[in-house]
Every structure is written in structure tokens, then in C-alpha cells.
């Protein structure tokens, strides 16, 4: 796999760096203006988030530059960290111990290895083979207490943190007419639109948010945030059509799907956090919480984006 760094990629990277510089400047300006205690805390958190963004963009850029291998490693490690946050919050029993060992050290690496070689078994490894293997391994361990619940939770964690996320680097395996060797931009596009949508929902929600969508799930998700976020992220996504195989209209549709799925992902993962009585999945990323808090929207958007792109644009839909 040979990914060329073309002019469009440079524009994308330059644009993101520009955005980061701009937001750092805004964050700095806000920090001078904030007077109230609550305002200062919000701005402090905002600036921590922006600093973390710099780091995340640097890591993502490095992965892009190294092509399929780098991307597979980056998302493989991300899946591993997200899964660890998820399972930590999920009550499992000692009877699951060896199952979990398999999950962490065999299934996760195998899924990403299959994407790297690439072998299309990765589409069914987790939904079929892990699905069958996990209950068998736990049954052998002999603990029947809440058996169905425990195996379902482990399977669910694998689906969200590993299977769904692995669709992001899997984009690099798509064969699109007239877009050969340029799939890295597609991956960039997905991650950018999903994350911008998160950021814009946060910004619109913080500035205009009044009407809560699901107050029992997340007090931070408002209609104003959702509509503003989806609209602005879709607009930005549409404006990036030149870097994708899509027409502007198609790009608008794709961005819209990414943002809506991303919103759904954030909501679902909030419901789980709320049920477990925590605010964040972890504390690894300054200002953002855990890894899973940052990628929840991406996990839900990636498979849908992959399938839509594959179905409508791939040379030999497989």
C-alpha cells in the first residue's frame, strides 16, 4: 500500500493546524476575559481540551504519514485503551478472567492484524467468531452467575471499542475508482467531521443550549447544540468534498450521517456512564476524560460511513 502525500492532504493538514492555532488563540483570549469562578473553570477545561487536541492531531498525523501500518497500530492501541476503560467499568467476575485475557491479547490484535494484511475475515471475526468463543471460554471456567449478562457485556464492549473503531483504518482497504492510493484522505475526512461535530455540538451547546434532549442521560446535550453542531459540521464536511470521491451533495449527505451517528454514539455511551455512576470513562486525555469519551462518536459513525462509501463508491462491492 502506497499512500502519497498529495496537495489535497497538505490542504487538509494545513486547515486543521490553522483551526488549532485559531482555537488556541480564542482559548487564550477567553482566559483573559473570564471573571466568574464557573467561567474560569469552563475556560480552563476548554484550554486543556485544546492542548490535548494538539497532541491528538500530532499522533493522528504521524499515523496517516506512515500509512496502513501506522493507522492500524494507532487505532489498535486506541481500541485496546478504550476496551480497558469499558471493561473496568463493567462488573465481571473471576470466571471471566481468562476470557478477558483472550479478548485483550488475542482478539484485539488479531482484528487489526487482519485489517493490516488485509484479509476480509475482519468483517466477521468479532460478530461471529468472538461471539461464539467468548461464552464457550466463560462456560469452561464454570461460573454460571449472571452468565448471559456477563458474556453479553464483554461482546458489546468488543463490538463498540474494537469492531466499530477498526472500520476507521479499514477505510484504507477500500478500492475506489479514480481514488487509488488516496484512501488516507477518506480516513482523515471521517475523523475530522466526527470530531468537528463533537466540538461544534459542545460550542453551540455551551453558548446557546437551553432545551435538553435527554436530561436523564446527559445534561450537556441540547437541541441547540445538536442542530448547530450537525449543521456546522455538515457544512464543513460539504466544503471538503474536493478531498473525497464524493460530489458536494454526496459529501453533505455523508457528513450528515457521520454527525448524526456520532451524536447517537455520544448519547449511548453517556447512558452507560450514567448507569455506572461516572462522568468519564477515564482520565487519560487532559480535559476530555478517557479515550472512550473522545472516540464514542467515531465508533458509531465509522461502520456506517465505511459501508455507505463501500457500497456506493467501491469498484467491486464485496
Amino acid at each position, binding site marked *: 500500500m502506497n499512500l502519497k502525500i498529495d496537495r489535497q492532504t497538505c490542504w487538509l493538514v494545513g486547515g486543521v493546524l490553522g483551526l488549532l492555532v485559531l482555537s488556541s488563540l480564542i482559548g487564550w483570549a477567553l482566559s483573559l476575559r473570564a471573571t466568574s469562578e464557573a467561567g474560569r473553570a469552563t475556560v480552563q477545561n476548554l484550554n486543556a481540551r485544546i492542548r490535548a487536541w494538539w497532541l491528538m492531531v500530532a499522533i493522528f498525523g504521524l499515523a496517516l504519514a506512515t500509512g496502513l501500518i501506522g493507522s492500524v497500530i494507532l487505532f489498535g492501541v486506541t481500541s485496546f485503551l478504550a476496551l*480497558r476503560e469499558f471493561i473496568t467499568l463493567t462488573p*465481571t467476575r473471576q470466571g471471566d*478472567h481468562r476470557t478477558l*485475557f483472550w479478548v*485483550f491479547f488475542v482478539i484485539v490484535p488479531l482484528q487489526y492484524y487482519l485489517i493490516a494484511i488485509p484479509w476480509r475475515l475482519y468483517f466477521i471475526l468479532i460478530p461471529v467468531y468472538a461471539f461464539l468463543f467468548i461464552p464457550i471460554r466463560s462456560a469452561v471456567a464454570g461460573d454460571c452467575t449472571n452468565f448471559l449478562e456477563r458474556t453479553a457485556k464483554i461482546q458489546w464492549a468488543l463490538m463498540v471499542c474494537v469492531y466499530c473503531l477498526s472500520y476507521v483504518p479499514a477505510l484504507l482497504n477500500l478500492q475506489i475508482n479514480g481514488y487509488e492510493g488516496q484512501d488516507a484522505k477518506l480516513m482523515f475526512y471521517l475523523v475530522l467531521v466526527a470530531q468537528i461535530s463533537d466540538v461544534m455540538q459542545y460550542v453551540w451547546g455551551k453558548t446557546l443550549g437551553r432545551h435538553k434532549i435527554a436530561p436523564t442521560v446527559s445534561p450537556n446535550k441540547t437541541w441547540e447544540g445538536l442542530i448547530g453542531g450537525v449543521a456546522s459540521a455538515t457544512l464543513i464536511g460539504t466544503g471538503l468534498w474536493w478531498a473525497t470521491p464524493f460530489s458536494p451533495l454526496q459529501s453533505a449527505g455523508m457528513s450528515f450521517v457521520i454527525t448524526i451517528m456520532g451524536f447517537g454514539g455520544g448519547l449511548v455511551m453517556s447512558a452507560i456512564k450514567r448507569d455506572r455512576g461516572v462522568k468519564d470513562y477515564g*482520565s487519560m486525555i487532559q480535559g476530555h476524560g478517557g479515550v472512550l469519551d473522545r472516540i464514542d462518536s467515531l465508533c458509531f459513525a465509522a461502520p456506517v460511513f465505511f459501508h455507505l462509501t463501500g457500497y456506493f463508491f467501491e469498484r467491486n462491492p464485496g
Partner: protein
Amino acid sequence: MMKSLFVAVARFICGVRARWVGCAPDARQRVYFANHTSNLDALVVWASLPPFVRDLTRPVAARDYWMKNRLRRYLAHDVFNAVLIERKRPTARDNPLTDMLGALADRHSLIIFPEGGRQADGELAPFKGGLFHLAKDRPDVEFVPVLIENLNRILPKGEFLPVPLLGGVSFGAPMKLEAGEVKAAFLDRAQKAVSALQPS
């Protein structure tokens, strides 16, 4: 070199995050007493200390376990400089208390597990008397309660392969033996100080 490697490995596998709730990391002489659920406990508490404290601090561990093979002996002696004690058949010559007081006399801090053994269910068992005797003999030393979380899921009793979940180590407010405090009252207070570190 090897020390920092083991610290890095322990931190990665157990995802340990140290929460200093009741005190700040400090080089003064302390006895850290923690709940015990996993063979990784000593390593994890030790690894979660900042280097300048870690270098002064020795975990207290069971000799029968840590002398069993070469790797364990190497870890105990050369990596975390453990104070190995006899827990099965303590004699006058092999008195665990003497070894611990000796290490304290050498100006080391200690990490101890006053439950005496690992608890499979993660519940806190009654503390053994050694903690009280240490506190009585060394009133100048701070006794810091430590709560270890999730380690019984990372490496439960009876398993040998760890699962890399996120563990947590919380350090509480230092305590000392109060004037006239009897053994049972002190041990009870110490135990409550550990369980009070539970976040929820």
C-alpha cells in the same frame, strides 16, 4: 534501569493512577498500609509512588512466596528491595515485627498489608496486630492508609496471567497511635480509614 522498566510495565498493565487524597507525596518516613487482593499489590503501590519516595520505600512481603523461584527472588531483592517476612511460622528468631522495625530503623518507609493475606472477594478483612505494634514502637512515623482498587480483577488469586484493566491507588490522611488508644480501637480505626477511601 531495570527498576524503571518494571515500574513502566506495572503502570501499563495495571493502568495505575495514584490519587493523593489525604496527603501529598513526601520523603518523610511513613508506613503505607493497604488492602490486599492480588500478588501485584506490593508492586503497584510501590510503582505508584514518585521516584524520590519510591527509592526510600520497601514493600513488606511473604518470604515463602517471593523466595519460591529465581525470578521472584530477583524481583524481591534487586528490583523492589522487599522486606521478606515469615508469615506461616513466626518464631522468636523469625519475628516479622523485628524485620520491619529493622527496616524502619534504617530510615526506610514500608508498604504493608495488615490483612495478612489476599482476600479473594475484595472485602476488607480484620487487620492483624502487627500494625499496632509498629505504631506503638515508632510514634514518630506517619501511618498512611492506602486503598487499592481493581487489582483483584487484574490478577485475581489463583490466576497467573494479568488482564490489563485500570487499577487505582488512593492515599489517605496520615494517622498515628493516639495517647491511650488500645490495640482493637487503633486497628479498627485503621481499617475504617482504608475503606473510607472508596470513592462512591
